[in-house]
């Protein structure tokens, strides 16, 4: 059936290969199953070769990539399961449900490992929601690079910001709607607004779960004759080809028509599913457990069989349905949410059924484990499909010839060639504090329950969230990081910087980085420049992970993030887990007492390239970002952690978006106290005052210490080979910065007004 395979997204070559494996013309059910399992979303056919580059081993690793989630040991008989996953394409089509079911899916991945989810984080990207100063008619915007302006290529004319605001507001509501109901706190994440995401928003959801070693369960089917049990929601036509098909192609003008293929979330059922799973795991009733995500029953059953080296006979007519007349192939590929598949011994079956009954959930024996090695599909006794499970789980690799994208350059911009800023530095500072990429995220996280479960010690808004471990007195630090602008300018350096920044953020609250999960968001991998970005970003990330000795334990790839041929910025999102032995040995970003000494750690020279300042005030993204010196980075983070454990630091804050000036302002605002600083020691040889203030560089942390320990702290830095410079002291009702001959004074109240209200005002500006 040549028309059908093409319609299902298979190539002629793949169709031939399927015929060869099957030894005949495949049935409709088989073709549907192959097309999904061999899609980019399920089969990773364009990315698998590069992903092998990641370091995945480590002494803490109990489960690396390839399962529902990765798991690391954290001592005391406890382990942490974590993963980040994208739901970009569904969210672009239907933002509330797309985001909600993204959260639902990643939560199931975590409790499918036997872990109780303890927090969520969300990394989001949208198009611009408000104009920048560079969009004024008289702005000194410079040419070159990618122009920042509202509106998607090919988007309808007029009101370019309304669509992005709609997506943003509904994605946030969807994340809250699902996570809040589940009783899992949303404690962190990030959001950026860039023109490059106007056709394809990014919604990456991460969940972290806690599990006792003995309760870990995997998805490997075993035991010929064991039952295959489907439980949770009924199966309907919703989401047929939703995540898997949407995520394996570019968007065009038919976007709206795809709305019906987005799944609808039911967090109430998922909450019951969570409780029943954990209850049954506690009593050891599951041989194996797997959530139903993209490609539904198809992927879960074939993966369970392939991992166990066994077969599964599946009876579609036994599946509880929402619509009675569903075809077998529809049942196999439906992406109805809130369903799990388990392997259960016949002896344990009554207990599993009774627990589901207690929680008012459907529970049906839909098949059995066999020794055939095949996934066989039966409908009313008639076999409608028979496929080798390992062939399904092993999609053919696609190799694309790599090409360097045209916009990449070898050297940074010459800052001297930029016109001088056309506004007073204080005005630029207030603009940056109010910029949607920088302003306080309170408007977002107040819509999320960030406290339930009573572990949230450092709330959203810090460098990383800190969760106490009630069981051990220790703490977990978690954050997500990834800068698309930086990675666009240099994928290798951008990938490296994302891992370095995530590790830095975790270190700044006092925790040691121990594991990484990641979500790789890129354009269409069939294009050489996109595959080139992907492979180089992975190389940079892998090198950084190796430098920190931190394994990648899970991850997800989202490709085809393109609309009308325009790709997003290459956006690797890094989810970092940190561990601390003592929850009391922690640090926040807030300045403390008047008289405390403010220091800058690290001496990387500030750069314009890819900075927020370059984008907002010069209307471009160009040049090449500085490379992270991994050796210096490791030393710096070690000093920060040691100083926190020794109780030396009053505050620590990673210096990132908006540069040193914004980092200082954030520490002032968080502490409700000003500071007087001289920034010349941080100039890095630059004579441009705006660059010193707002230029960005990796491996820099602003700390404050009590005057009495300042000397000892500087000795600690010196001994470790970490550059430190005294900038000034905490105190007063304003941030007073001296740079060269200029004095900039910003009252706390003015900064607070800009920073606290920036995001909300950006949503309202006409």
């Amino acid at each position: 059936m040549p028309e059908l395979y093409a319609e299902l997204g298979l190539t002629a070559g793949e169709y031939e290969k399927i015929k060869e494996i099957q030894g005949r013309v495949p049935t409709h059910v088989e073709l549907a199953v192959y097309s999904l399992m061999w899609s980019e979303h399920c089969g990773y056919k364009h990315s698998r070769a590069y992903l092998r580059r990641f370091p995945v081993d480590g002494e803490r690793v109990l489960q690396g990539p390839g399962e529902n989630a990765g798991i690391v040991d954290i001592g005391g008989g406890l382990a942490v399961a974590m993963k980040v996953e994208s739901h970009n394409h569904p969210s672009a089509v239907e933002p509330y449900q797309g985001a909600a079911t993204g959260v639902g899916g990643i939560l199931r991945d975590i409790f499918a490992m036997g872990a109780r989810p303890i927090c969520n984080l969300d990394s989001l990207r949208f198009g611009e929601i408000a104009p920048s100063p560079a969009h004024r008619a008289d702005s000194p915007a410079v040419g070159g690079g990618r122009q920042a302006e509202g509106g998607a290529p090919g988007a309808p004319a007029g009101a370019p910001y309304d669509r992005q605001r709609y997506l943003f507001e509904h994605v946030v509501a969807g994340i809250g709607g699902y996570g809040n109901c589940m009783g899992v706190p949303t404690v962190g994440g990030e959001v950026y607004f860039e023109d490059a995401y106007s056709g394809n928003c990014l919604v990456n959801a991460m969940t972290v779960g806690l599990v006792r070693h003995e309760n870990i369960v995997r998805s490997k089917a075993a035991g010929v004759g064991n039952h295959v049990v489907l439980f949770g929601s009924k199966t309907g036509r919703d989401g047929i080809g939703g995540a898997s098909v949407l995520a394996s192609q570019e968007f065009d003008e038919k976007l709206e028509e795809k709305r019906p293929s987005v799944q609808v979330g039911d967090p109430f059922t998922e909450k019951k599913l969570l409780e029943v799973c954990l209850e049954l795991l506690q009593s050891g009733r599951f041989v194996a457990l797997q959530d139903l995500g993209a490609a539904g029953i198809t992927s879960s059953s074939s993966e369970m069989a392939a991992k166990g080296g066994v077969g599964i006979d599946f009876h579609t007519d036994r599946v509880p349905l929402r619509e009675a007349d569903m075809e077998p192939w529809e049942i196999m590929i439906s992406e109805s949410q809130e369903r799990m598949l388990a392997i259960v011994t016949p002896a344990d079956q009554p207990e599993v059924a009774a627990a589901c009954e207690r929680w008012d959930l459907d529970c049906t024996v839909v098949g059995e484990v066999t020794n055939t090695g095949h996934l066989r599909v039966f409908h009313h006794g008639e076999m409608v499909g028979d496929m080798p499970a390992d062939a399904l789980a092993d999609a053919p690799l696609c190799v694309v010839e790599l090409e360097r994208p045209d916009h990449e350059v070898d050297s940074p911009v010459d800052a001297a060639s930029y016109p001088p800023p056309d506004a007073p530095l204080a005005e630029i500072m207030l603009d940056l504090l109010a910029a949607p990429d920088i302003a306080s995220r309170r408007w977002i996280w107040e819509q999320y329950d960030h406290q339930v479960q009573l572990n949230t010690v450092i709330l959203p808004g810090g460098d990383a969230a800190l969760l106490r471990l009630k069981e051990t007195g220790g703490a977990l630090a978690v954050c997500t990081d990834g800068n698309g602008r930086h990675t666009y300018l240099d994928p290798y350096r951008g990938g490296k910087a994302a891992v370095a920044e995530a590790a830095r953020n975790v270190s700044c609250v006092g925790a040691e980085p121990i594991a990484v999960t990641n979500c790789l968001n890129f354009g269409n991998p069939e294009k050489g420049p996109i595959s080139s970005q992907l492979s180089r970003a992975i190389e940079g990330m892998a090198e950084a992970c190796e430098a920190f000795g931190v394994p990648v334990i899970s991850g997800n790839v989202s490709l085809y993030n393109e609309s009308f041929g325009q790709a997003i910025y290459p956006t690797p999102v890094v989810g970092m887990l940190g561990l601390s032995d003592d929850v009391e040995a922690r640090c926040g970003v807030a300045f403390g007492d008047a008289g405390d000494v403010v220091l800058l750690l690290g001496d990387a020279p500030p750069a314009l390239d890819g900075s927020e300042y370059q984008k907002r005030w010069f209307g471009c993204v160009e040049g090449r970002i500085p490379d992270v010196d991994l050796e210096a980075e490791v030393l710096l983070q070690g000093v920060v952690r040691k100083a926190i454990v020794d109780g030396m630091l009053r505050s620590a804050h990673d210096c990132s978006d908006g540069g040193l000036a914004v980092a200082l302002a954030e520490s002032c605002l968080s502490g409700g106290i000003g500071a007087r600083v001289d920034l010349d020691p941080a100039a890095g040889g630059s004579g441009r005052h705006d660059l010193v203030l707002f230029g960005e560089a990796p491996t820099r942390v602003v700390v404050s210490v009590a005057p009495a320990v300042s000397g000892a702290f500087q000795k600690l830095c010196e001994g470790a080979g970490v550059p430190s410079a005294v900038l000034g002291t905490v105190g007063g009702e304003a941030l007073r910065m001296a740079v060269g001959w200029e004095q900039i004074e910003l009252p706390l109240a003015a900064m607070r007004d800009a920073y606290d209200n920036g995001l909300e005002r950006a949503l309202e500006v006409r």
Partner: protein
Amino acid sequence: MTARTSGGVRFGIVVFPGSNCEYDTMHALGTFPEAEPYYLWHKDHDLRAPDVVILPGGFSYGDYLRTGAIARFSPLMREVAAFSDAGGLVMGICNGFQILTEAHMLHGAMLRNRGLKFVCRAQHLRVERTDTPFTRSLRVGDVVQIPVNHNEGAWTAGAESLQEIEDRRLVVFRYCDAQGNVTDDANPNGAVDNVAGLVNEGGNVLGLMPHPERVCESVVGGAGGRGLFDSLLEHVLEVR
């Protein structure tokens, strides 16, 4: 129902499908040596001799239809009503408060927050009454900080109800600013008269939107909620 005369103070925490603060309530009560908390399942028919029944926060039945509207029909709610009719102490927190209004055990009803957004934040409350078992260890005019976390917390009531509430002084907590001023700016959800919590006529049933169980330990946000549990423990141990 038989009242206990010795041992710890028994708190029965009712678990509905969709409840999600029952573990937190259990944990918070665990920080009080005299408390003896235990779970009750909504399909049960026996409260197992509690001193206090707590309806915890969460999304019972997914907040479907209307928040609290389905949970009030759970079998155990008949026992809760009988317990309160006999003077038993019942505290509904957030979703528990919503269930109590739906069950007509407290005045009023809940609307969606003004602004139509979920709100989770630290919140100041002014203590309006201390002659209740829930607030006896506090002082009138005290400002306590207890976070709110809800989507439907705009409590409202008809004119007649409001008059009765006023006459009988049923309001126990109002949203206020850090200085104790009851202002519209300090109202997180648009509740009428900034009502954050109120009791029934008998003074033995309290509903409140803020979550006292979230602020019983300084490491996670303070101890502003301890006063309520201290009050209950004091009261129960005294009347025994």
